[in-house]
């Protein structure tokens, strides 16, 4: 049930890209606003018609088919729930089943997204998070060959987003089709997606695992230096009594704000490059708890005062963005040994994932 997409257009937005998503895989399509990521989703759904488009889903070509004949589930940014229909009505209207089977399936989907108790409410009477769940249930009602999520978390506040992330993770076993998540949030992409593709000006800049994309200079250029960060893999070692969790990494011990994972669990941490300090000697009497040893692989000066330093830290790559002045002061060169300093509290919980 693979989805393969090839799009090309000049107007009204330039598009030239192709990619595939496997069954059960979630691809995060990341890019700045105006990069064309939503247009890609709309082209797959048949809501936008690029000059050339080849979309193949589940072995069938969708080229030339109108939207309602493409088995696509779409969650819109503002959810686009039908305002005159109840929660149950919004879901059952997208169902192919008739009669009693329809009601049973609608109730099953409602239960799946945890909305059984608001079945008879209108969308205007639901909270943002509940509306999003209705939108997801409606998208799944059609048993789609492809599920498209267009920035589905942008309309809810942070705490709600956290709950919805957990629910999407729990739903993943239901999602046997290819899934595309459009987002501009790298943390969201890291948390939910299996793979990432970075898009800019209608072209794919790079794609791969999050760790690969995070280190790709082409992606950095598109996503901006403030979002740049490497991904380290560590293992939960102990839960400390003072609200910290101790992680073990080949390059050293890391303390992070408590994460609720079993001891021994492998977690991925995204460390933003501008949160990493470098020192030529192991610093002592310093508030930062995490000091890990590394070797400089490369130093890339930027246009401004900064420079990006790539370090080998216990076999993984760590990025540090420091000033060129500091590079000179520390006498850093390729092959230099140095110490990376990380504040525990800079490693926000939403940057640590299983």
């Amino acid at each position, binding site marked *: 049930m693979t989805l393969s997409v090839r799009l090309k257009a000049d107007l009204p937005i330039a598009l030239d890209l192709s990619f595939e998503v496997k069954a059960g895989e979630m691809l995060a399509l990341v890019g700045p606003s105006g990069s064309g990521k939503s247009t890609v989703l709309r082209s797959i759904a048949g809501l936008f018609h690029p000059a050339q488009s080849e979309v193949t889903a589940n072995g069938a070509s969708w080229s030339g088919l109108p939207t*309602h004949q493409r088995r696509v589930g779409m969650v*819109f940014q503002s959810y686009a729930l039908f305002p*005159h229909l109840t929660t149950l009505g919004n879901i059952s209207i*997208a169902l192919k089943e008739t009669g009693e089977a329809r009601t049973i399936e609608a109730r099953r989907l409602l239960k799946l997204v945890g909305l059984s108790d608001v079945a008879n409410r209108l969308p205007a009477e639901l909270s943002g998070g509940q509306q999003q769940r209705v939108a997801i249930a409606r998208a799944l009602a059609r048993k789609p060959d492809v599920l498209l999520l267009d920035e589905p978390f942008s309309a809810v506040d942070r705490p709600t987003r956290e709950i919805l992330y957990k629910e999407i993770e729990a739903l993943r076993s239901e999602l046997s089709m290819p899934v595309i998540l459009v987002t501009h949030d790298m943390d969201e992409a890291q948390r939910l997606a299996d793979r990432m593709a970075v898009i800019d000006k209608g072209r794919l800049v790079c794609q791969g695992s999050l760790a690969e994309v995070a280190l790709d200079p082409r992606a950095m250029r598109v996503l901006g230096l403030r979002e740049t960060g490497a991904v380290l893999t560590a293992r939960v070692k102990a839960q400390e009594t003072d609200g910290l969790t101790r992680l073990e990494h080949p390059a050293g011990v890391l303390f992070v704000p408590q994460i609720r994972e079993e001891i021994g669990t492998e977690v991925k941490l995204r460390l933003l490059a501008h949160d990493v300090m470098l020192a030529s000697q192991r610093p002592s009497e310093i508030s930062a708890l995490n000091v890990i040893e590394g070797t400089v692989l490369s130093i890339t000066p930027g246009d401004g005062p900064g420079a990006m330093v790539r370090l080998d830290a216990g076999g993984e790559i760590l990025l540090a963005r420091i000033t060129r002045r500091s590079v000179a002061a520390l006498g850093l060169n390729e092959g230099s040994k140095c110490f990376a300093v990380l504040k525990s509290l800079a490693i926000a919980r939403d940057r640590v994932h299983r």
Partner: protein
Amino acid sequence: MDWQALRLSLLLASLTVVILVPIAIFSGRRLALSKRKSLPIIEAMIALPLVLPPTVLGFYLLSAFGRSSPLGQIWQSVFGHTLAFSFEGLLLASIIVNIPFAVQPIQRGFEAVPQELREAAACSGMSPLMSLWKIELPLAWPAVLTGAVLTFAHTLGEFGVVLMVGGAIPGETKTIAISIYDKVQSFNSSSAAQMSAVLLAVSITTITLTFLMSRKIGRRLS
């Protein structure tokens, strides 16, 4: 009190609504979704009956319905009587005159339905016709109601065009508005007052019902 004229007016108004509203739904929706460059010209043509003096409109319709016009000749050969000065001719004229009253509010109603909802309907597997029936019409319903009521009320009150196209044949083309005029001309002011009062009551009732219903629907959806 000219009951025959009232009955005729109500029949004319009802038939005009029944025939025109479905046409207005399809054309209004098309116009609402249209991105053509010629859209303003089409909209201007639709609005034309609003600005044209009824006598001028009536004159052109009379010419188009007359025995010397192609339409009039075809009608004559098929039905054996002229289209002008007949109830059918009056109905056709009434439909044409009322196009802006029905189409404009309905077009606005469909324009107010967010494009995203149409897209969501298509993504939910609904064909354009299904989307119209299940999503767009229920949302644009107050606008359709407004179009229908405006058409109905306007048909009851239309004078100039009716006189030009229909003459004033009792039971065939003599509507209540013309009957009121006749009564005033023949100094029967008590009868004219009676009929005016009936027309006023009908108008107040329909327009109040419309506002109440669209308010109710609007509250349900907001």
